[in-house]
C-alpha cells in the first residue's frame, strides 16, 4: 500500500485508464494536425507540494519559455488540467494550424494552444471519467506565457496540500510539436478517485 490508501492495483488501474484516455487524445490531435503522434506511458505520483515542485523542475527545463494552459474541471472527480508546451512547439503548432510559413502572431499562438488544450482536456478527462462511470463539467481554460518551471509558483497551485500528479507526453515529431500534460487533484478528491477505482476493481473481480 502506498500513500493515501492507494494500492499498486489502484495505481495500475489509473495508469491503464489514462493510457486509454491519452490514446484517444493523441488520435484526436493527430486528426487535427493530419499527422502521426507518439504517446508516452503515463506516470502517476501522489505527493505533497515539495514533491510537485521537484517533479516539475525535473520535467520542465527552467531556461525555456513555455505556454501553460490551465483548465479546471468539476464533478465527483474534480481538479485541474495543465498543458505545458515550449515556445518553439507552440510556434510550430500555430504555423501548422494556420498554414503559414512565418511566425504567427501571439494571439494566433494563444488560440492554437487553447484549441489544442480544449481537445486534450475534453478527450482525456471525459474518457477517464467515462471509464470511472462518472461525469465532469469543464470550465473556461486560460493560457499564459511563462518562464521555465515558474508554473509551480502560480498562486492557485499553492492551494494544493496533497496532490495526485498524472503526467504524460505526446510528441508529433515531423511537426516538431510536443507537450506535457499534468492532471492535478487534491485532498478530498483523492479519496473520491480511490472510491471510483474501487468500484472499477469490484466490477473487474466480480
Amino acid at each position, binding site marked *: 500500500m502506498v500513500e493515501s490508501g492507494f494500492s499498486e492495483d489502484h495505481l495500475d488501474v489509473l495508469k491503464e485508464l489514462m493510457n*486509454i484516455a491519452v490514446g484517444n487524445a493523441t488520435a484526436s490531435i493527430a486528426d487535427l494536425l493530419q499527422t*502521426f503522434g507518439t504517446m*508516452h506511458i503515463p506516470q502517476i505520483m501522489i505527493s505533497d507540494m515539495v514533491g510537485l515542485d521537484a517533479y516539475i523542475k525535473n520535467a520542465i527545463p527552467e531556461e525555456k519559455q513555455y505556454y501553460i494552459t490551465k483548465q479546471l474541471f468539476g464533478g465527483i472527480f474534480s481538479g485541474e488540467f495543465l498543458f505545458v508546451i515550449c515556445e518553439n512547439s507552440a510556434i510550430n503548432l500555430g504555423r501548422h494550424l494556420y498554414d503559414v510559413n512565418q511566425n504567427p502572431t501571439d494571439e494566433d499562438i494563444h488560440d492554437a494552444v487553447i484549441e489544442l488544450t480544449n481537445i486534450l482536456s475534453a478527450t482525456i478527462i471525459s474518457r477517464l471519467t467515462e471509464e470511472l462511470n462518472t461525469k465532469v463539467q469543464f470550465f473556461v481554460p486560460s493560457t499564459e506565457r511563462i518562464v521555465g518551471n515558474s508554473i509551480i509558483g502560480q498562486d492557485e497551485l499553492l492551494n494544493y496540500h496533497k496532490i495526485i500528479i498524472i503526467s504524460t507526453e505526446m510528441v508529433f515529431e515531423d511537426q516538431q510539436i510536443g507537450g506535457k500534460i499534468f492532471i492535478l487533484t487534491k485532498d478530498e478528491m483523492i479519496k473520491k478517485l480511490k472510491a471510483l477505482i474501487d468500484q472499477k476493481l469490484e466490477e473487474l473481480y466480480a
Partner: protein
Amino acid sequence: MKILVVDDSKLARLSLIKTLKEHEPSAEIFEAENGLIAVELFKNENPRVVFLDLTMPVMDGYEALKLIMSIDPKAQVVVVSADIQTQAQAQVLALGAKMMVPKPINSDKMSDILNRLVF
C-alpha cells in the same frame, strides 16, 4: 489452445483475460508484462493467438511484433492498443498483425475478433 496476453498493465491483462474466458473457457493463457517476456514466451509456448499492447516499457509492441513475426510469419497477433491512430494501425498491419483493436475490449468485440481468427 494456448493464448498469450501481453500488456504492462495488470488491469488490462485481467480485463482481457476475463472477456476471453467467456468465449474460450478452456484456453491455456500465458501473460507477459512487456515485449521482451512476450517474445520469450512465444518461442517457448508457440501460442495460437497473441494479444499485444503497443505502449510498454522494456520492449514495446512494435518491436515485439517484428520479432514474433520473424520467428513465425504465420503468427496470429491481435494488437490491442489505446493508440487508435490510423498510421499506428497501418504500421502494425504492415508488420504482420492480423488486426488492431482499440482498448478496452468488451464481449462483443472479443467475439468478433475470435471469429476472424483461424483455429
